[in-house]
């Protein structure tokens, strides 16, 4: 494994050369512009990120950020409903938008000479949206269909939603991004108007442009289109700090389904909240030790080794805005049950706490991080995403340049330390999907040992 580590170091110096330069600008109205050059193809991606998302919402209006995102395509003082999309399409572009707990973002991908088209339209809808009652009535229906599609009819999504609502009590991370169905039904056009005026302003937005562009020319263009927009007094959302969890939480979700599923999460710090920054990168490595590829522990030991799980995974996002969760999930193999999977996952956690990870495992995680950092440069969209995600939660984009170095600095002892500190029962929430029969006439499929052909 020594060979691998040497190679890693060599690559680090090489990478600096390959990376396009990033330029940061500030408009007088407070809007931030970040431009990254990538001249490999004559294309450009524009992303407008607003610092608002589901975690900014209070009870009763959940899902409003996402509904507003839908309404942003429904007309302004200067462009009627649907015109935005038609103009982008006529210019050969593709576009969309997405809402998360922490941000709302809009993007267009265009041939590079069409950049002014996207700036003109995005600047217009940043301040000039016209919310219309009949458009809203239809779009609310669309969002409710979206909720049915993504959540209501998907047993694992439903489990995830209930799991989040259990894990968090005060933190707004308890609410689903798409909103509770009843809140969607009771949303009013006035609510949207207030939400739009409160958050959609240049000083609450970050404009990210990546592609075959000249940064200063982009700045000039941004000043022309976004410069005249009026800033808003932005009031930060209430902190809603999640109180310490007093003990393990466990729920069961019983809905029609075929396959049981287990999801567990532990409260952990993120980059924006961590007192000790190394902990965040150690958690990142921990996630890689468990699930960073096909040779990582969960697949190696639970799927192929003991064969207790048909699939298993782990995940952590260091760029969340608030205290978040380190997630571990598993689906039992044929002939195995949820209890066996839970036991096996807990055994994995115990091992991480009792023994430092092996040098080879650590080297593999780091080698993947170094290589991924190059592979990610292949997508200008992804490069823009990285910048926007950091900026939208109040982190500096330049933190992404530290990532490889920070991960490379993590030691086996640090991984063990965060496993001991955070992967503990007191901070744990577990959710089990316990299937009910899908066909009311049929008996539920037993998920007990003896069923199936496990080995």
């Amino acid at each position, binding site marked *: 494994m020594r060979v691998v580590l040497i190679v890693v170091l060599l690559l680090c110096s090489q990478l600096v050369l390959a990376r396009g330069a990033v330029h940061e600008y500030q408009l007088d109205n407070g809007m931030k512009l970040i431009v990254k050059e990538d001249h490999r193809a004559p294309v450009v991606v524009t992303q407008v990120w607003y610092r608002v998302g589901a975690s900014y919402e209070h009870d009763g209006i959940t899902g409003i950020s996402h509904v507003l995102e839908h309404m942003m395509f429904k007309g302004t003082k200067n462009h009627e409903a649907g015109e935005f999309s038609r103009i982008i399409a006529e210019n050969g572009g593709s576009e969309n938008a997405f809402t998360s707990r922490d941000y709302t973002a809009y993007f267009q991908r265009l041939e590079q000479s069409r950049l002014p088209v996207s700036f003109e339209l995005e600047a217009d809808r940043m301040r000039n949206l016209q919310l219309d009652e009949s458009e809203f009535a239809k779009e609310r229906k669309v969002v409710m269909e*979206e909720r049915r599609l993504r959540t209501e009819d998907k047993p694992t999504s439903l489990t995830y939603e209930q799991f989040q609502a259990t894990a968090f009590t005060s933190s707004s991370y308890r609410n689903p991004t798409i909103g509770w169905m009843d809140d969607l039904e009771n949303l009013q056009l006035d609510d949207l108007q207030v939400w739009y005026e409160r958050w959609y302003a240049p000083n609450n937005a970050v404009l990210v442009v990546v592609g075959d562009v000249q940064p200063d020319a982009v700045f000039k263009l941004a000043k022309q289109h976004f410069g005249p927009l009026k800033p808003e007094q932005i009031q930060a959302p209430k902190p809603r700090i999640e109180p310490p969890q007093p003990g393990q939480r466990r729920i069961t979700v019983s809905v029609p*389904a075929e396959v049981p599923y287990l999801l567990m999460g532990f409260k952990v710090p993120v980059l924006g909240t961590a007192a000790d920054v190394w902990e965040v990168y150690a958690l990142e490595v921990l996630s890689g030790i468990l699930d960073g590829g096909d040779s990582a522990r969960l697949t190696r030991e639970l799927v192929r080794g003991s064969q207790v799980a048909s699939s298993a995974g782990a995940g952590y996002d260091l760029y969340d805005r608030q205290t978040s969760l380190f997630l571990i999930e598993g689906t039992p193999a044929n002939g195995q049950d949820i209890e066996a999977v839970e036991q096996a996952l807990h055994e994995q956690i115990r091992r991480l706490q009792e023994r430092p990870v092996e040098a080879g495992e650590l080297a593999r995680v780091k080698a993947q991080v170094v290589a991924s950092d190059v592979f990610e440069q292949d997508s200008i969209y992804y490069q823009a995403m990285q910048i926007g995600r950091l900026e939208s939660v109040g982190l500096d984009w330049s933190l992404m340049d530290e990532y490889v170095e920070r991960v490379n600095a993590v030691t086996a002892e640090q991984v063990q330390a965060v496993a001991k500190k955070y992967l503990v029962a007191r901070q744990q929430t577990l959710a089990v999907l316990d299937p009910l029969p899908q066909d009311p006439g049929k008996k539920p499929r037993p998920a007990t040992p003896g069923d199936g052909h496990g080995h």
Partner: protein
Amino acid sequence: MGIDLLNRVVRSGGLVGAVWLCSLGTALAMPPIQHWQTTNGARVYYVPAPELPMVDIRVVFAAGSVRDAGLPGLASMTNHLLDKGAAGLTANDLAARLEGLGAELGSGSLRDMAWVSLRSLSDAALLEPALEVLQQVLGQPDFNALDFERERERTLVSLREDEQSPSTIAEYRFYRVVFGEHPYATRPVGDAASLQRMTPEDIRAYYEQYYVAGNAVIAIVGDVDRKAAERLAERIAGALDDGKAAPAVPVVAALEDASEERIFHPSTQTHVRMGAPGMRRGDPDYFPLYVGNHILGGGGLVSRLNEEIREKRGLSYSVYSYFSPMAQDGPYVFGLQTRNDQLDEALEVMRATLKTFHEEGPTEEELVAARKNITGGFALRVDSNSKIVEYLAMIGFYMLPLDYLVTFNARVEAVTREQIRDAFRRRVPVDHMATVIVGGEK
């Protein structure tokens, strides 16, 4: 890392991977495609991309489920097992070697094709050992009985997971109804009965027939020069037996009647798939049908179906139509999902929208807008190595002309309203379509 942490909600449809097609803008950033054959007959397609220190390799075989020969899931399981043990190394060993190099191995199979891909840094100290693993996986898979049985059990679990999804149920049933006795009808991943019948011997026989140089296309994009690309291709193909190309896929028969089938599922939405056999790769009607469908239901946020179903009536989050051209006529698919009690209205609007388009064709404005969208966005379709390598593999696999990308825009520009109307009338059987409906009670 395995869990979608972003918990993002995206506005548009795009739930179904629409047919990926390409067109050419005025500025083509991509250098010309270079093509040659290895000494043992594999066809190679290569584009240099020296900007980033990385290489993408995609090796494609005519080894999809269309050749399952009565044992559905055989092609898929064969492909899936390649990296689960090879050259005496276990799945763990193989994965650990690659991951220690930061390399990414991918594999998959569909109805026509199966592939293995490798993405590696181009530094020889990393690329060489990664390539060695690729050679082992392609040329010396072990197909151990224990690995096979474990992966079969996992597949059986995922088949049960599919039964939780009304969309997946509709999808598979749709192929069954549209393709009848044709091998496109089966589920590529197989079914419980066929998986129970399957043996490692079946898999080895399938592998020996189809994973051969004469049946392979190798696509290479990245920071390697022509000489290096030739060496790479020789080494990859050299890991394979010579063999020969797979026989042609049988012709798909047209549907004789309209049909409608309803399947109960305890969901709040009902999912619809409607359609018929459509067109193949290299089809003489390809461009009029492609552009026509773009207007009808393929243009993302801007299409007639999206306008009628979503924008005007709020009936569905995702409504679409797409051609899936394959070696023979792949399906022309219409799809949507809506609250159970809105099914009749949504279905009626979808059918009426198709009927009107079928009779009248597009307006001149629609055609102009579609042309602008398709041709003006060409550069976006080849703006990354990962997209280019997929195009190379597709062009090579379906033996499309090497100037396919270069001439694409001109061929889109040449499409007329009358050609679209004519092609839809001849090729889209509005009165002989299959409809599959999966959902709960009203």
